[in-house]
């Protein structure tokens, strides 16, 4: 048992944190938020140079050779800086799909991703199905030696920024064995409509309509299932770690506020009820760190313990995130509600992370169904 980071891990964490500290202050982030692009291409290229875009992929595919722990370190740093770049969509979700599929095509595309040349989006979930990706209406048909897809993909993270979409669809006869397969779609193709928008936490997403849109088969059902599962697993670790990073900042800012804001002639941090609320926030943060570590340590395994750890983490993060965000706003009072101050933007992100890849109910339910019950 050893909770110390290796030198390599520490260096990764420090390099990224330094970069973000220097180049991504809150004011910069807010300007990016209001820009048409919504994030920084420049920073993305810096990530590529530093190898950040290859962190969770093996050396063989040109990656950093990291695993869940390294991904956790990166995502936590991104969360601390409240970054807007499509790391989750492109690297964690899209990239993991490609790394799992590992065909010639997938490998060359992954190289472009790692080099910062290509952005991806993972178009999987559909309207009316909430967080459940098991049943899809989108379907694929063979046509002219290739395939065409039709369907509607909901709230596709950074769907409007992607150079390539990775789209899941039900196969019909002639396409592959029946089930959910994965396809590559060029968003500029005829039959693809991308309706982009901003999310409440300042990121980008899109509705994607496919009407007989040309598509390239990326993975047949069995491999596709594995790729989707791995991508979601990595996505959960990244989201949990991002939330932990954001919660750290929320706690730091709130603590600072309690120490400086005066009321009735003393810093408000002298009031015991506020102290205890702050203590509970910090305790929630510690528990969130712990469960995220557990998920990160298990994400590269297979089997029920991995799935349990992932769902436990997302469920606990959902609950703790809400508590920390709401408490921070409450402890700040009015200032905690304002657009100009950074903390409320962190709070929004932490709360809205619950709406990505399954919320606290979804994962508690999933954990519940995997829970062991032995005889008396």
């Amino acid at each position, binding site marked *: 048992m050893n909770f110390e980071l290796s030198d390599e891990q520490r260096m990764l964490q420090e390099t990224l944190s330094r970069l973000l500290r220097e180049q991504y202050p809150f004011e910069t982030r807010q300007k990016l938020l209001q820009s048409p692009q919504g994030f920084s291409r420049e920073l993305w290229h810096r990530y590529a140079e530093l190898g950040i875009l290859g962190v969770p992929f093996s050396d063989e595919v040109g990656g950093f050779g990291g695993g869940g722990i390294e991904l956790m370190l990166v995502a936590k740093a991104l969360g601390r800086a409240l970054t807007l770049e499509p790391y989750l969509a492109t690297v964690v979700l899209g990239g993991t799909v490609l790394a799992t599929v590992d065909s010639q095509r997938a490998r060359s595309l992954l190289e472009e991703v790692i080099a910062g040349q290509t952005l991806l989006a993972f178009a999987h979930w559909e309207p009316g199905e909430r967080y*459940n990706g098991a049943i899809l209406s989108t379907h694929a048909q063979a046509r002219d030696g290739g395939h065409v897809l039709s369907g509607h993909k*909901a709230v596709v993270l950074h769907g409007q920024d992607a150079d390539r979409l990775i789209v899941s669809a039900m196969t019909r006869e002639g396409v592959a064995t029946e089930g959910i397969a994965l396809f590559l779609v060029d968003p500029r193709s005829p039959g693809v409509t991308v309706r982009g928008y901003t999310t409440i936490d300042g990121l980008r997403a899109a509705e994607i309509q496919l009407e007989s849109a040309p598509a390239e088969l990326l993975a047949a059902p069995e491999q596709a299932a594995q790729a989707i599962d791995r991508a979601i697993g990595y996505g959960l670790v990244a989201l949990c770690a991002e939330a932990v990073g954001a919660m750290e900042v929320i706690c730091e800012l709130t603590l600072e506020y309690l120490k400086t804001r005066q009321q009735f002639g003393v810093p408000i941090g002298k009031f015991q*009820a506020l102290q205890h609320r702050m203590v509970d926030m910090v305790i929630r943060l510690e528990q969130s760190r712990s469960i995220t570590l557990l998920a990160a340590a298990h994400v590269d395994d297979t089997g029920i313990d991995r799935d349990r750890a992932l769902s436990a983490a997302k469920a606990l993060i959902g609950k703790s995130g809400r508590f920390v965000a*709401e408490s921070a706003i409450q402890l700040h*009072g009015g200032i905690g*509600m304002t*657009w100009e101050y950074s903390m*409320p933007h962190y709070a929004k992100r932490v709360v809205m992370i619950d709406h990505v890849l399954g*919320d606290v109910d979804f994962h508690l339910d999933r954990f519940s169904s995997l829970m062991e019950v032995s005889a008396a």
Partner: protein
Amino acid sequence: MDIHYDEKELAFREEVRQFIREKLPPELAAKVKSGKRLTKEDFLCWQNILSERGWLAQHWPKEYGGPGWGPVQRHIYEEEAAAAGAPWIIPFGVGMVGPVIIKFGTKAQKEKYLPRILRNEDWWCQGYSEPGAGSDLASLKTRAERHGDHYIVNGQKTWTTYAHYADMMFCLVRTDPKAKPQEGISFLLIDMKSPGVTVRPLLLLDGEHEVNEVFLENVKVPFENLVGEENKGWTCAKYLLGFERTGIAGVGQAKEWLRQLKAIAAREKNNGKPLIEDPSFRARVAAVEVELMALEMTNLRVVADAEKGGAPGPESSMLKILGSELRQEITDLMRRAVGPYALPFFPEYFDTDQPIDVGPEYAPPLAAQYFNHRKVSIYGGSNEIQRNIIAKMILGL
């Protein structure tokens, strides 16, 4: 003991209900129910309708133009208005400065301001909070110095709701800097068009412009705009704090929202079935409804007590805590009900009729509403302050 409305009360409810049914423009009700932001004109539209009927100044004595209602009648109005989607009555004029002027104002002040309030000719805002003085009003720093027949006011107010609409502001200012913190404060009426008044928007975390900073730089305020005695402004402020606030529990709004929550959860699907049939979600909705049933009864008990002449002081704190936390819980469940579609955010939704082409039509306002309603446990004295008040005033701790 009878918890039901008696015949007279039922008849009154019917009267209110019918009036609202006839007079409330359906577009306005639709705006309220779909969580849109109301414009100044929207508020004034409804307030003019109420004014015409004589129902605007619900707390005022009849002689000043009030409808002569008691607490139970005011409660019934609140319930019916919320259920029908009538706009909230902006309280700063009719609910706040009006009663203060009635109680402490000069004859001239009464004659000048009260009819204008009744006719919605002045939009008032409240200048209490300052950057350094939130719940702790006594530490306010805005100074008013006498020069001949007027004051020169310097300072800054913040969290000033709808200051950008306002014609007038009632304001707490420090007139004697040497007095003890709670003394030496005066209650002034300031014309927002006076030179030296600057209003700066303070956007909320959901991008909404509702509150403002108000900068006061050498603002000349005639001495006749002082309400009550100089250095006794605290008395006016306290008078308002102790004022019965029938609607503070927000029961009417909570009921309407709960209805909406259920309707949304009936349309959302979870594993192929309506979300409202998911046992965990349904149990959470049920728990909220149970709490709301109790709160409605707690509220009625306080209202009935006020009707009998009991002074509902600290009980208001209890209603505020329960009501704010309950509505926050409902906004939380609403945002969760729509799953991923809580993420898309369309600022234009709130201010235009333009339909949103993304997700279910009830989804667009929900996440913003959740974040925006964090304020209800902060403003008007945070829930921590309310708990302090109960600890001190009711429990004697």
